[in-house]
């Protein structure tokens, strides 16, 4: 039983606006919310609320504003950066029950949905009209559109069809002030500043998404999938650059290194050449007539980069098998190791080979294996650091290695996160990527929406104080003093 009187008062207050079963405050009820998909960070919230409609959310926000209680919104909890990590003294706002598809507007090719609708459910609902929602994170079966917007999520097909920000047309956002903002619309452009873009990737810190209208695209006429295997990773990297600069934008262009290939073969036998140093999977889509030429063209480019094999999938079955391997890469590697830590840096494509080399050097230096599976077409790397949390100190080594990999990405002219967000995880690396004046601007943006820092406080943007501390520590390359203390 919860003992704190203030907690029991609070529970009572929430029970006045929500059904009893929607107010969770017992330890075992809170346990499932303890972490998102970044399991290294855990924290139970003070209270978890499971509203069923907009009115209830508004009432919750009114109470939290009045009592200055932090709110962390949660979709499916698949964030890989600790974005949905609860606040010890706050409300965890589970939006999963707001999962209605409100409208499919065929004439304007849009879907209007509640925030808890899953990514895949949108495409499923649009399918019978021959339409689909383009951004396709690997987690699409589980993750919600609210979470996708908060993280500006990407997927395999983002190379051609853009990220979440390019595919969301309108949002209804509830501010902590209790105001409902209507941003964007089914019409293009909006008067005033582009707040619609600002909301994408804002990690639940500027407002709560109550409703989203997204763009639906017609299913492409036709698709082709190619596999190419290489003996050396540089050749694969150069082939990627050559394809993109030849005037073709593939629907997807993915790369896996030797280690990832081997793991996947063991896991689900997608038919990848086991000895290859790297493989590329290239999907082309468009009109049948154009595709034949494009495939021939891409094959020619691949053949110029000393492949050991170039294979065009014969039929839909083989195409699916080739993709299955890529999509199972994480679980496949998970099979080989007790724990893994997934990084998300992005670099300009031309530095692919060099960056991979340096990651190898770092991997050796820290004594942990790193597998590489990534969106090569847009330079978004997902190095997976394999470690064992049960081994004393290994998590810390993994984190330190991860931190160096991200700093390497910044050095290469890239960024510390391409699609997973900063969350709680990459706060220190934000200090590397941004100057104090830039960070101050971010804080000022936050404050324009949420003066008292009640929405997802302590995430995404580090304080200057924290950066100063990180800078000092960084010079000494020491362990964090009081590593368990919050450093917001």
């Amino acid at each position, binding site marked *: 039983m919860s003992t704190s009187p203030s907690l029991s008062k609070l529970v009572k207050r929430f029970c006045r606006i929500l059904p009893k079963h929607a107010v969770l405050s017992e330890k075992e009820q809170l346990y499932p919310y303890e972490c998102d998909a970044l399991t290294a960070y855990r924290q139970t919230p003070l209270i978890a609320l499971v509203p069923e409609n907009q009115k209830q959310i508004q009432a919750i926000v009114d109470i939290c504003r009045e009592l200055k209680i932090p709110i962390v919104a949660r979709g499916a909890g698949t964030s890989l950066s600790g974005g949905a990590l609860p606040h010890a003294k706050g409300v965890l706002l589970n939006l999963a029950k707001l999962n209605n598809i409100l409208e499919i507007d065929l004439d304007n090719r849009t879907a209007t949905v509640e925030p808890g609708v899953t990514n895949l459910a949108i495409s499923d609902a649009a399918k019978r009209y021959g339409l689909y929602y383009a951004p396709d994170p690997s987690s699409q079966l589980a993750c919600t559109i609210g979470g996708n917007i908060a993280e500006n999520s990407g997927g395999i097909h983002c190379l051609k069809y853009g990220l979440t920000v390019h595919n969301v047309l309108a949002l209804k956002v509830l501010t902590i002030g209790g105001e409902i903002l209507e941003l964007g619309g089914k019409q293009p452009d909006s008067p005033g500043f582009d707040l619609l873009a600002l909301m994408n990737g804002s990690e639940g810190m500027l407002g709560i998404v109550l409703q989203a209208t997204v763009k639906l695209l017609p299913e492409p006429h036709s698709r082709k999938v190619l596999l190419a295997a290489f003996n050396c990773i540089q050749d694969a990297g150069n082939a990627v*650059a050559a394809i993109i600069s030849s005037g073709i934008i593939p629907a997807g262009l993915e790369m896996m290194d030797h280690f990832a290939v081997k793991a996947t073969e063991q896991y689900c036998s997608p038919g990848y050449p086991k000895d290859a140093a790297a493989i590329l999977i290239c999907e082309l889509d468009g009109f049948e007539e154009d595709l034949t030429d494009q495939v021939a063209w891409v094959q020619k480019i691949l053949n110029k980069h000393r492949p050991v094999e170039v294979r065009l999938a014969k039929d839909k079955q083989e195409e699916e098998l080739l993709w299955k391997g890529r999509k199972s890469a994480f679980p496949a590697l998970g099979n080989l190791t007790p724990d893994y830590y997934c990084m998300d840096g992005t670099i300009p494509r031309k530095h692919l080979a060099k960056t991979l080399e340096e990651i190898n050097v770092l991997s050796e230096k820290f004594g942990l294996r790193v597998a590489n599976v990534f969106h090569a077409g847009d330079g978004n790397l997902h190095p997976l650091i394999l470690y064992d949390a049960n081994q004393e100190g290994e998590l810390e080594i993994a984190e330190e290695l991860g931190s160096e990999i991200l700093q390497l990405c910044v050095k290469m002219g890239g960024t510390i996160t391409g699609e997973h967000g900063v969350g709680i995880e990459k706060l220190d690396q934000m200090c590397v990527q941004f100057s104090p004046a830039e960070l101050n601007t971010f804080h000022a943006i936050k404050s324009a929406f949420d003066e008292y820092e009640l929405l997802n406080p302590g995430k995404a943007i580090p304080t200057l104080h924290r950066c100063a501390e990180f800078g000092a520590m960084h010079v000494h390359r020491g362990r964090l003093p009081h590593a368990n203390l919050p450093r917001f």
Partner: protein
Amino acid sequence: MTDIRSDIASRVEDACRQGQALQILAGNTKFFYGRKIQETPLSVLEHSGIIEYEPSELYITARCGTPLNEIEQAIKTENQILPCEPPHFGAAASIGGMVAAGLSGPRRASSGAIRDCLLGVEIINGKGEYLRFGGKVMKNVAGYDASRLMCGALGTLGILMSVTLRLVPKPQHEQTIAITLNPADAILKMNFWARTPMPITATFHDGRDLYIRMAGSPSTIKRFADKVKGEPIDQGDIFWTNIKEQAYDFFLTDEPLWRILVPPSTKPLDCPGSCVMEWNGALRWYATHVKAPAIHSIAKQAGGHACQFRNQIDTQQVFHPLPSGLLEIHRKLKRAFDPQGILNPGKIYSEL
């Protein structure tokens, strides 16, 4: 090449200290767009030149004063284009002005707006601080998306010093075809086609004829041109340049020209005046003397918004009025970037 960044930064710093408002200028080709303001001019045109262009990376970084012409020439030789097909409205148009105005061209409905291809910016804010947001890579979610905030803000949040834009390959082959259709049928057709995979990269309806630009291999184009039963027209390039640059007859009017954006399938609006359409019907240009509040209300009823684009009669409300809650957030954001309110004050709304 002179780098005048530090000069500009210190001028802004001084202005901030003295509370002196500045009017940021480059090519001044879009002088007609937005509310009229008259402040101490600060030209950034001199800060010019392409900083980085690597065709295989599909991006270009250029200083704000770089002529749009120079950029389009440079990428053309590598068979690339700006996906948003921006209007120039004059030879002096600069890349910074393009981003600040945020006006996209005919390709908007098929390959996105200026904000969609904007990867990163470097700005000087209203305190004279030099800031960088976004970057050179398409995938980047570190920090709030402050770079896209600059797009369409008409210089009210910061002075763009350099911008990085995503490029796309130029379509191998394009062909424009025309069909005679009344506006209501044209809207139906465009939006029906948009639901199926069609190689359409631009649409324009002049009140009588619907013009459709298709891209792809000649055989693909032929197949779809036959399907829509259109007549090919010659010199499609020139045709679309005239639409984009508003050199087409319709635009050469002395009447107030309104830019109205609505959900694309919206039926013809009940609004007196003459009208042409782009973007599958989502963009409707009206030449009309109807008063501003009436047009704003027509646009709003259709679920859209309206702006007085050229030949304004009401110089107060140029852009669609914002609801008070939204305006308040705008005010606070303006203060976050420009606490003294010295950068192009009043250019979008009198309050900003």
